[in-house]
């Protein structure tokens, strides 16, 4: 395939992204007001906008609500084990470096059970794009505390409020060596789409954190309807490209920083393997 197929008129009204969706599996499992669908849709729009042939993409996900994304994209897609999307994706990338590998998963999957894989893939500068839908809790299992849940927030396993502190994900990604780090919310969907587009085209480890409401499991226990969460995204965020990731912790009272935190160039894992191992072994 050199060109992506054009959509031809059909009887049913056809959404502009229908050629990238497994329409026979729609409606998806995500709850009304859940933000994952918007992030997913944004990701598909970004894939389309790159104009790269679809068969040069693959999507890998772990386990959880967000991880179900891989099941709805009409590309080669992999729904793997909990936390292991990144090493699975790394295997694909290193075995076939021409592919654009996108990891689409949630905060619990990528940063609690899969945290170790995240930092190591960033350290290696594995040339993959990691999109993390951050809904501040474990949605699929019914709303338990996650590594991203704000202090004192209520979840089913922190009924008196979360005694722990959450990760600052952009800082973690930056410190681990990521080449591209950005954060957006689902309300800022145009910026998000542009960021995903940039991240796909970026050589190196790209990470995008997307804040998304979980109205059923997180919102309900913290007195936050999905539209309230969206209002927070509207009123309590500050867009500041190039901001210090050290100040990127999520504190809606002070204001949450959005934008591109890191955009640097560094040799990727596959390039370095080529230069360091393949060329030396020929001597």
């Amino acid at each position: 395939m050199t060109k992506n197929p054009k959509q031809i008129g059909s009887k049913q009204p056809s959404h502009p992204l229908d050629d990238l969706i497994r329409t026979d599996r729609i409606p998806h499992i995500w709850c009304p007001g859940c933000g994952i669908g918007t992030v997913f849709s944004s990701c598909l729009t970004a894939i389309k906008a790159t104009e790269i042939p679809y068969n040069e993409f693959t999507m890998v996900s772990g386990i959880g609500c967000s991880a179900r994304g891989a099941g709805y994209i009409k590309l080669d897609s992999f729904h793997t084990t909990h936390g292991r999307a990144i090493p699975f994706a790394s295997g694909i990338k290193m075995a076939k470096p021409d592919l654009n590998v996108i990891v689409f998963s949630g905060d619990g999957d990528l940063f609690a059970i899969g945290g170790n894989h995240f930092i190591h893939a960033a350290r290696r500068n594995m040339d993959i794009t990691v999109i993390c839908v951050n809904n501040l809790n474990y949605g699929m299992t019914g709303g338990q505390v996650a590594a991203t849940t704000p202090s004192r927030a209520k979840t089913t396993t922190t009924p008196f409020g979360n005694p722990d502190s959450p990760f600052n994900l952009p800082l973690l990604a930056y410190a681990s060596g990521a080449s591209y780090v950005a954060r957006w919310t689902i309300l800022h969907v145009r910026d998000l789409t542009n960021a995903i587009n940039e991240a796909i085209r970026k050589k190196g480890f790209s990470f995008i954190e997307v804040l998304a409401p979980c109205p059923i499991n997180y919102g309900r226990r913290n007195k936050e309807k999905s539209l309230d969460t969206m209002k927070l995204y509207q009123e309590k965020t500050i867009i500041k490209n190039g901001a210090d990731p050290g100040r990127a912790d999520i504190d809606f009272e002070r204001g949450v920083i959005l934008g591109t935190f890191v955009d640097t160039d560094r040799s990727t894992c596959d390039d370095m393997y080529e230069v360091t191992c393949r060329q030396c072994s020929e001597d």
Partner: protein
Amino acid sequence: MAFWRQPLDTQEIQITKGVVNIIEDRCKGCGYCIEFCPMHILAFSDHFNKKGYHPPQTTKPDECVNCHYCEIICPEFAIYSTEAPL
């Protein structure tokens, strides 16, 4: 508003006109398109779709400017806008 300057090219700028398309049975009634439509031309309809939600409807169809925001904020692939035929 009274003090805003009138751009010099107001006369030449053409505002695109759009048509809102709704795939009703995909809608789960989150209301994002209604809340965030910059032209405020969407509202919940009275009828139910297959899944038991009230899908949106256009209250002022002529005022759509084809900005696609409803399309990109929708988590359900249930709404999109297209350019209105001239």
